[in-house]
């Protein structure tokens, strides 16, 4: 029992890392319908630039985190507003878009590798600080910060989506873009906001991930994209709340299995949750097949 509760504690920490990334991914995917695999390299980019700023001595670690977010926004805007619209206008298909994002992520990832000489870099952002005990759960200060960041981001995004006019427009557009446009919603602006939000979350997720693993290299983001994708798909695209719940499921499953000695299978456990849900989900096959999927860029 003790081990289980402890594992759940670790699971919550892992989940908060996954949740930051998954929220950004799911927002953007739900609105634009583009399965954006460049998300991984945007995370790497945020982590790298955050590390660069942090390695200047005497800089507040929070400035590094903010730099990561800003770098994520910049990279995502270039990709989402500069590159994707061009291809979408040429009438690219559902799978071709995935291939396109894969190709772009190859280019960006290896550009980063070419610049950083393909090395690993050690980083220590926040001082280790004291550890906190909540019953059997032991959490370090840094991990508490992650949980705090994730909770803060979730609350602000949920607030944005459900309390503001902008959020209402965003939700309307992700359900039915054509109808939203004809209601006079400024679709272009909403799409911009979505790219910015998703880029910011990608950058912060990247930097949180490398703070947790203490090393950064050009593969960091792509190592992390599998659980992020799993959580985003599990939690229904376009729903940050779903992404958070899914991250908790994935994170806890991963940590519980690794606590009971199956460290090789911990990632499988996280993924197993996704498979079980997909299998059990009542899928209305025909409606899924006949639905016309359009990209909104």
């Amino acid at each position, binding site marked *: 029992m003790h081990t289980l509760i402890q594992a759940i504690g670790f699971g919550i920490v892992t989940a908060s890392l996954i949740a930051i990334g998954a929220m950004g991914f799911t927002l953007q995917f739900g609105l634009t319908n583009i*399965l954006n*695999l460049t998300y991984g390299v945007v995370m790497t980019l945020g982590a790298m630039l955050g590390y660069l700023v942090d390695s200047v001595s005497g800089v507040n670690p929070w400035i590094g985190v903010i730099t990561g977010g800003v770098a994520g926004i910049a990279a995502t805007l270039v990709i989402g507003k500069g590159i994707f619209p*061009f*291809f979408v206008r*040429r009438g*690219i298909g*559902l*799978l*071709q*878009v*995935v*291939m*396109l994002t*894969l*190709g*772009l*992520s*190859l*280019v960006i*990832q*290896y*550009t980063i*590798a*070419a610049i950083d*000489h*393909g090395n690993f870099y050690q980083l220590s952002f926040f001082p280790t600080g004291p550890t906190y005990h909540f019953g059997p759960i032991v959490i370090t200060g840094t991990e508490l910060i992650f949980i705090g960041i994730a909770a803060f981001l979730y609350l602000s995004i949920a607030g944005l989506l459900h309390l503001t006019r902008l959020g209402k427009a965003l939700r309307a557009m992700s359900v039915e873009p054509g109808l939203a446009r004809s209601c006079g919603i400024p679709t272009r602006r909403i799409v911009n906001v979505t790219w910015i939000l998703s880029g910011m979350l990608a950058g912060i997720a990247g930097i949180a991930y490398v703070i947790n693993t203490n090393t950064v290299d050009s593969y960091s983001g792509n190592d992390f994209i*599998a659980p992020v*994708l*799993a959580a985003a*798909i599990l939690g229904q695209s376009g729903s940050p709340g779903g992404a958070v719940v899914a991250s908790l499921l994935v994170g806890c499953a991963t940590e519980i299995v690794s606590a009971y000695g199956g*460290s*090789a*299978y911990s*990632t*499988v456990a996280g*993924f197993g949750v*996704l*498979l079980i849900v*997909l*299998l059990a*989900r009542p*899928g*209305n*096959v*025909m409606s*899924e*097949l*006949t639905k016309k*999927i359009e990209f909104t860029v």
Partner: protein
Amino acid sequence: MQIYIATLVIYCGIDVLGAWSVNLQFAYAGVPNFAFIVFVAVGAYVNGTTSLGPGQGQTYILGYHLPFPLPLIAGMVAAGFVSLVIGVFTLRSSLRRDYQAAIMFIVGVIALAVVSTDTRIWNGSNGIAGIPQPFSNSFAPNTYNWVYGAWVWAICLVCYFVVEHLCRSGWGRGLRAMRDNEAAAGSIGLNTSFLRIQVFVIGGMIAGLSGGLLVDFIGAWSPSAWGYAETFVFFAAIIVGGPENNRGAIVGTILIPIIFTELPSFLPEIGYVGLKESLEWIIIGLIWVGFIGFRPQGILPARRLKVDRDSTTGWRKLAGVGGNPFRERRLLVTPPPSLTVETSAPETSAVATGGRAGGARDDG
């Protein structure tokens, strides 16, 4: 030098097999198999362990001593079986195709993580080594490479005819119908879920075969040989060479895996170690993106499929494989010419470009 050329010939044959498999799955059937390299790896591992025999110093499952062609077949069957298991779970009709792509991507990442951490399956990240080359005692090393190359290309030739026949058969047309409009394909009686699993398993077996051939030649196999980026080499070959065209796949293979990733090892090192590889991948990525945007049909476009209209009756003839008269189908898709306005060209052939579904006799 001669050994190097022979090695390139062998690699080319092996990669062509992989490219055909991706072509069949991705270009014809629209199955986004981003875990492709996993099936190559399964074929390689099973072929390796079943020819190595019980492990000495290495731990792995399936250590049997099988005589020569059997390990290759075992690898193929194992890869097909793994594809069946993964396919049943992930390729569900209720999932959108980009979801399927994402899940396949995750499967690839996770398979790599499991095999490299659990040393009981295939010796973890150290991998298995010392796999004997079949019949290597009977030839001098120099000739052996050429003999092995001939063996690989003989298999390729057989595979080419099999794959080409599959693609042109009614089954292959069913694949394209499923890819273009799954709901419509289902409504004319195609069991699309089953079709997708079939093409996935067949592609998986070809992948396993190529992995087995590779491991017989290089004699070792470890997780570093099948990082998930390796999958993209095959996809790049297809995109560049020409989707839906098995000859285009050969051209793409010669260009991407051979010229862009094997030949640069001739060039002198530039800068620090690893820069050359990064530059290679940047160029491959740029070519990839460029082809998707500006030439989606690839270097060798798929041959156009023609639907001939019989000018007297106005029925469209859908001829079967190679115009076999016994496989002709007649479909009323347009009214007789007396009712249509368009009566221009003598050869009134409606050309379905880009190999859309329902096409028939190819005029290539």
